[in-house]
């Protein structure tokens, strides 16, 4: 029995008893459930397994504290109206916002944060970490840490550009289809059907194999693949708005299509569109990450998270987790955005409970 194990169980049991005493049912269930699970884990895996559990719990606690503080911070700096909205945000959404904020800072200030350039060779291949290189070197001897920082700018930037392209294309087509109706509406609907019945990754691979993996090709390919989803949603949302009386009134006033879209329809359908933008970003980000993992994304030497995973994958067979960090960075951002979208959808639509 080491000191660690004793302290571990004392803390857990203490928390459970306190929670039970103060009638906090959920906290008690979690704490005591964890105690029971730890008995089994401790017998199978020994203190190492318990240490892993403790580290996970500590990380979760840290994340919870950070998100709580960040939410309070946002409430303080936001206006009264916004503050009230933010107060309803669950912890997960606050965490998502914090992640997005961190990535934005990382992307914008990459050259100042990263100690080395993204294409700068400073050591031998796969050199281990030292004071100069926080995470060691990659397969060509470039600083892994700097490349991860730069990756935030390149990978997220590309995904963001592609999402915006898809969104503008899809939303514009959807709004036009809703206002014009008739054959244009029918035609766009069928086109969307056809594009959506090709698996997205396969379609992207086809286009990239033909036009080559250039950045503008990736953006256009992704825009074509994901625009139909936006089109359908916009068409449905705008379709509900178009039949309103005030649209009829505006039409009778003699306003043009563009005015109708900009001043009447768009302001009344922003909430679902913003949520859709977040969701769309997640899909696009995962698709672009998958493409760059397959070597068809941003071409070297530009740092890109997906290709970094593939290039350094050999390290994994030696039990080194460094190649997983860029992959984890992709997952973390997607999870964060999803959390925020979840909250927004919940708020705007009042999903059934």
């Amino acid at each position: 029995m080491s000191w660690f194990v004793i302290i571990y169980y004392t803390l857990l049991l203490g928390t459970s008893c306190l929670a039970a005493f103060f009638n906090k049912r959920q906290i008690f269930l979690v704490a005591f459930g964890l105690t029971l699970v730890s008995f089994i884990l401790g017998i199978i895996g020994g203190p190492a397994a318990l240490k892993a559990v403790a580290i996970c719990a500590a990380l979760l606690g840290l994340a919870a504290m950070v998100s709580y503080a960040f939410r309070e911070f946002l409430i303080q700096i936001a206006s009264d109206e916004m503050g009230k909205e933010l107060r309803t945000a669950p912890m997960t959404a606050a965490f998502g916002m914090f992640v997005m904020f961190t990535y934005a800072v990382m992307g914008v200030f990459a050259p100042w944060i990263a100690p080395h350039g993204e294409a700068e060779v400073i050591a031998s291949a796969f050199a281990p970490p030292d004071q100069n290189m926080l995470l060691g070197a990659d397969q060509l001897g470039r600083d892994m840490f700097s490349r991860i920082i730069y990756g935030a700018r390149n990978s997220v930037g590309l995904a963001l550009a592609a999402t915006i392209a898809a969104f503008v294309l899809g939303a514009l087509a959807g709004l036009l289809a809703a206002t014009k109706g008739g054959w244009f509406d029918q035609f766009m609907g069928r086109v969307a059907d056809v594009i959506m019945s090709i698996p997205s990754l396969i379609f992207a691979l086809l286009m990239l194999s033909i036009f080559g993996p250039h950045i503008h090709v990736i953006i256009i390919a992704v825009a074509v693949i994901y625009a139909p989803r936006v089109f359908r949603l916009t068409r449905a949302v705008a379709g509900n708005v178009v039949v309103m009386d005030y649209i009829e009134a505006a039409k009778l006033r003699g306003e043009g299509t563009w005015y109708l879209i900009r001043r009447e329809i768009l302001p009344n359908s922003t909430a679902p569109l913003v949520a859709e933008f977040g969701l769309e970003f997640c899909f696009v980000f995962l698709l672009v990450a998958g493409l760059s993992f397959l070597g068809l994304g941003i071409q070297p030497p530009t740092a890109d998270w997906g290709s970094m995973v593939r290039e350094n994958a050999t390290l994994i067979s030696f039990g080194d987790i460094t190649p997983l960090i860029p992959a984890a960075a992709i997952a973390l951002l997607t999870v964060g955005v999803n959390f925020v979208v979840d909250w927004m959808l919940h708020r705007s639509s009042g999903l059934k409970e």
Partner: protein
Amino acid sequence: MGDILGLVGKRLGLGVFILFVISIIIFFMVELLPGDIAQAVLGQGATEENLAALRKQMGLDQPAIMRYLDWLSGAVFLDFGNSIVTGERVTAVIGERFMNTLFLAAYAAVIAVPVAIVLGVIVALLRNSIFDRVANVVTLSFISSPEFFLGYILILFFAVKWQMFPAISSLSEDMTLGELLIRTFLPALTLVLVVMAHMMRMTRAAIINLLASPYIEMARLKGAPPWKVIVKHALPNAWAPIINVVALNLAYLITGVVLVEVVFVYPGIGQALVDAVSKRDFPVVQACCLIFAATFILLNLAADVGAILTNPRLRHPK
């Protein structure tokens, strides 16, 4: 019964038509190449004679429409022409790999479908409890992770640290089924994790939607025991959304399989597609894309037909 057959037939016809349109897209996209295939294969340094010879050999001197009809009539009988890199028949390259991919997808589906549906129903019944919240966060994390992230984590733990399963799934002809299942366990598990998360969330949403309807409340109010409410009242109406969820997720497996096959170096059709894309072997790319699209459409079709069969309301469209 007649009108059901009619509806299903109509849906099938639409599926075939969409597949036809997709074959046009796949074929004529290659025509958009700057220059043509012969130029792309031989590169910039090719002489005029070489180009002309290759064009003749590949039939590129024919008009595009004729070549398309030729390609399509071949594709119907699973003949996609020859690979331009190795010269082998595309069917010979892909055929066996397609079987391997189907095996992997089936393996993952057999595990994922029952577990996901049971867990999804449980989570729906326990909604808003701490268990539901945890399940929500966990499934969301799995959905948000790229497949290669999950794959490499599994390799790190199961193959490198604990050495329980092989990290690379090399298959050979003379393996027993048990050996095959162990060799392909990690790729299958990766797919299971992703698909299960999707399926659980969709099942949960479908069941919760159902439990909110008035007739379920009526059953509860008249004092039926909870299990009876679920089994007798909710389940018959739940089949339609559940079948839909299963078919849609199997369709999702088709895309997920590409990345997973590359991570585990699994000899499947996804790997073949990625190889062909990097070598610019267009006949293979076209064949793989058509096969993937056909499978995708077939599964979506199955979802629609399943919905029509289990939900009588859909048989009388407005």
